[in-house]
Structures are given as structure tokens and as C-alpha cells.
């Protein structure tokens, strides 16, 4: 089997295809996503990142080029069902993707649609709720949960379908910092422990630093692609694309320009603290 789960081959997409010369939202993107990887997609509003996500599981079909999931072409209507049971999708607003009036019924919705045996559904639902840490809330009504909890229920709804890949389209955009952290930790654990491929679309730099691979989009194209360290070393390109550097990177840059001897490529708060501590020790401050 191919080691890439999703492949984009010179893909372009424009909404309103009837209008001649409608502006393409995604332009000539060629991309492959490795099985089991954790890919973050960054970009400012209107950069085409959400459209890229919707191209992954046949919600949108490209006008030119080809998107394949496990070798299945998303343009083939007959394969849509199989593509969607391979690539699940979590949206920005948790309220608009929860279907049932009880948490466990909602998680069961996907497997029920797949026609799984009732006993097996029960097992999968319990397992999925445990894996996102929401098992104790299984009998709650969704509207009584916090945003972060609702989003975790939505993620459980996808994992219960046992998809190989989850695409999350700005799942943290509507959440408070705590909810963001909950969702991020959950997604990281699913990737690490269950080997689920994750495509995480976000505009929070700190979340992107935790991925294996970061893609930066601007004006429908991918302008940077690499590990977080590589990508964030191109500071000018990132700022030109309308994005910020991660807070820790910005802070350590300021320290470096003030003459402190810190290593390059600091991205997370932990790295930054360690580097400052090492530097302080060297100077005999502590």
C-alpha cells in the first residue's frame, strides 16, 4: 500500500465555476500526506486553507488536477462513501456538527451510518469517548457541555468510525484557551497512540509548532513546507504571509538581538525557558 494517505496532484479549485475566470481559491497545489503523520496547515483568513481541507474528503472536488485518498479519486461519486470512511472531518463550530440529543448517541451516529453491528458500535463508542476523555459525560446533553468538550465529542464521533485520517478545520477557532489546549492534547494523543493521520488547520502558531510538519498557505498556494523548525526559520516569508511567529520564537529573537546568547530555532515556551535558564547559569545569575 502507498505510504501516502492523501495526494494532491496539481489541484486548482474555484467557487462559482460558472463564472469565467472566477478567482481560484486553491492554485496548482501538489502535496502528499504521509500515513501516521501530524500535519498543521497555517494561513491567514482567505488563504485557501479551509478549501484545502474540504478537498480532502470529497466535499469539494477540484476543477483541475486530482485528489486521491488511498488511491481513490475524490471525483468518482461511487467512491465518496469509502473516501469519507477513510478521512473524517471535524469542523470549526462544534454546535453545528453534533447530531443527537445525548453525547453517546452522537458518537454512535457515524458507526450507525456505516452499518456496524450494535454490540460493536457500543464498544467503539465507549472506546472513542474514553480516548478523548469524555466517557464520564456520555449521558449528558450536548448543549450542557463547554466548547472544548463539545469539540472532543465531535472528534470522538469521527474516531468511532475508525477513520485512518482526521482533517480538523480550525477546530480551536471558537474555543477559549483551555478548550484549545484540551483539543490539541486529544488530537496529539490520537496521532501518537492510535497512529491516526492528522491534518490540523489552524491560525494559531503555537498549535502548529507541535506538528511533525507545517504547511503555510498564502493566496491559494503552499509557500512553505517542512518541519516547524524549518518553516519558522523563514521569518520574513511568514510575516509577509500575514502570520505571526510563535510567541516563544519572537521573544527569544528579541533576547538574541539584545545580545543574549540563545540558540536559534526556539519555538515552544519550554524550549525558551530551558535556553534562558542555561544562559542564566552560564552568566552565574543562578
Amino acid at each position, binding site marked *: 500500500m502507498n505510504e501516502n494517505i492523501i495526494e494532491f496532484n496539481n489541484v486548482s479549485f474555484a467557487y462559482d465555476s460558472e463564472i469565467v475566470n472566477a478567482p481560484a481559491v486553491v492554485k496548482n497545489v501538489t502535496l502528499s500526506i504521509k500515513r501516521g503523520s501530524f500535519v498543521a496547515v497555517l494561513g491567514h483568513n482567505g488563504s485557501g486553507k479551509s478549501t484545502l481541507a474540504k478537498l480532502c*474528503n470529497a*466535499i469539494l472536488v477540484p476543477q483541475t488536477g486530482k485528489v486521491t485518498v488511498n488511491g481513490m479519486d475524490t471525483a468518482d461519486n461511487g467512491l465518496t*462513501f469509502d473516501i*469519507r*470512511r477513510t478521512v*473524517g*472531518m471535524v*469542523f470549526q*463550530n462544534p*454546535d*453545528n*456538527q*453534533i*447530531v*443527537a*440529543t*445525548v453525547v*453517546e*448517541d452522537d458518537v*454512535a*451516529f*457515524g*458507526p*450507525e*451510518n*456505516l*452499518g*456496524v*453491528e*450494535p454490540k460493536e*458500535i*457500543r464498544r467503539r*463508542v465507549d472506546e472513542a469517548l474514553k480516548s478523548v476523555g469524555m466517557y464520564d459525560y456520555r449521558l449528558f*446533553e*450536548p*448543549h*450542557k457541555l463547554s466548547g472544548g468538550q463539545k469539540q472532543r465529542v465531535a472528534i470522538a*464521533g*469521527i474516531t468511532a*468510525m475508525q477513520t485512518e485520517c482526521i482533517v480538523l478545520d480550525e477546530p480551536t477557532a471558537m474555543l477559549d484557551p483551555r478548550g484549545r489546549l484540551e483539543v490539541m492534547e486529544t488530537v496529539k494523543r490520537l496521532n501518537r497512540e492510535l497512529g491516526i493521520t492528522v491534518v490540523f488547520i489552524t491560525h494559531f502558531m503555537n498549535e502548529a509548532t507541535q506538528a511533525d510538519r507545517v504547511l503555510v498557505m498564502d493566496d491559494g498556494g503552499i509557500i512553505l513546507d517542512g518541519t516547524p523548525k524549518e518553516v519558522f526559520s523563514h521569518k520574513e516569508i511568514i510575516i509577509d504571509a500575514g502570520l505571526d511567529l510563535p510567541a516563544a520564537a519572537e521573544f527569544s529573537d528579541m533576547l538574541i538581538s539584545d545580545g543574549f546568547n540563545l540558540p536559534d530555532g526556539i519555538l515552544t515556551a519550554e524550549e525558551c525557558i530551558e535556553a534562558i535558564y542555561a544562559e542564566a547559569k552560564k552568566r552565574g545569575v543562578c
Partner: protein
Amino acid sequence: MIRDITIGQYLPGNSVLHRLDARMKAVLTFFFIIVIFLCKNFWSLGLMIAFTLLFTAISKVPLRMMLKSLKPIFVILIFTAVLNIFYTDGGRELFGFWKLSVTDKGLYTAGFMVIRIICLITGSSLLTYTTTPTLLTDAIERLLSPLKVFKIQVNTLAMMMTLALRFIPTLIEETDRIMNAQKARGADLESGGFIKRAKALIPILIPLFVSAFRRAYELAFAMECRCYRGGEGRTRMKQMKLKARDLGAAFLVAALFCGVFFLNYRFKALI
């Protein structure tokens, strides 16, 4: 506060009535209502009252809640009573004035009707008090499933009901939010006459509708992403199984049926 709303009038509890299979409860409620209309004299009606009280006691629904469910039909009860008192023919005239006369039969019939309606409302309220809307929807889906023969998409209907229930609290929250937003911009929702206040609702309803449609659109995407294709090939996690207590309940209602028939023939019919 608005987060605490409960949909329907379900009262959480753990009585036998709560634990009965929702399908059985729905069917038995249906038969219960039929039996109410089969009563022909005060003996069989008395048995009916006894059973209604018995079921209410079993359900442990507080009497206060039961009376609350009768409050909206109070006007109907009065109306029915008055009509029956004056419009029943025959019987011995007790007193009369102008063109109206009150007979003993009229009084009997009025009392009979009022008690019937009270039993009817109490019986059907018991169903909604002891069953969650979700279970009730499931039960209706399963009970109506034979209609598939006539190409009626029962699954789709049930899904629509579930989604409606699911989005009631969400839309109430949204309404609250929009009202606050419009108030913050100086909208006056409380003063003025009926027409003025109705007009003031327009800037609330329009954004609410727009947002509801946007939600529906996103929800449809989310459902498709979770492989929803309508009813075909769909399984259900929760299976409903009839237990001994369900048969017991059926037996009880059957006994009521027989009792009412017996009393109807044993004593002479009043109406």
C-alpha cells in the same frame, strides 16, 4: 439559566413506568385512550379513574405536576361542561330558565365528559413525563417502521425529529444572544402596543433565520462527512428489548380493557 431548559416535559426518575420500553408505553397509552372512550357508565369510568390514579402513583410524578398539565385545558373543561349541561336532550328537568333547562342527564353527561378529558390528559402526560424525547422519537421510529412498505421514509422523519429536538436549546441560546445584541444597539423590545412589539421582533427573527439556515447547511456537510445516506444500511446502537415488566404492563392494560367491557354490560349505559 437558559442552559437549563428541558425539552418536552420529561421528569427524570427511576420508577417502573420510567423503565418500561418506550414502544410499549406509546402503544399502551394509545389503548388507554381508546378504553377511556369505551366507558359507558359510572362503574366503568370509576375503574378508569382507579387505574389512572394507580399509574400516576406508580410513576411517582408529583400530583402538583399532574395538575400543572391540566391547567392549559381548564377552559376546555369548563366549555365542555357548560355545553353538555344545556345541550343534552331527555332526562328529568331539575330547573330551567328562559329557553334553557338543566336536566339530571345533562349534569351526568357533563361530569362524565369532564372526567374523561381529565383521564385522557393525565394518561398521555404520564407518557411524556416518564419518557425522554429521544426515546420517544426512537419508539415512534420503530413503531412506524412497517410504513416502509408504503415507501414512507420513517428513518428520515425520525432523524428530522431528533435534529429538531437537538437544535431547540441551540436556537434558544442564539435568540437570547441576538436579542442582547439588538438591545445593545438601542432596540426597544418591551414598550409599545402589540403591533409595535411585533414589529420590534423583525430584527431578531431575520438574523435568527439566517443563522438557522447557515447552521443547517453546515450540519448537512457534517452529517455527510459522517457517511449519512438516509435510512438504508443504517444500524442502531441501542436495541429495544421487551422485558417481563413490559408484558406485565400490557397485561394490566388488557385487564383494564376487560374490566371496562364487563362493567359496561353488567350495568346499564348512562350515555
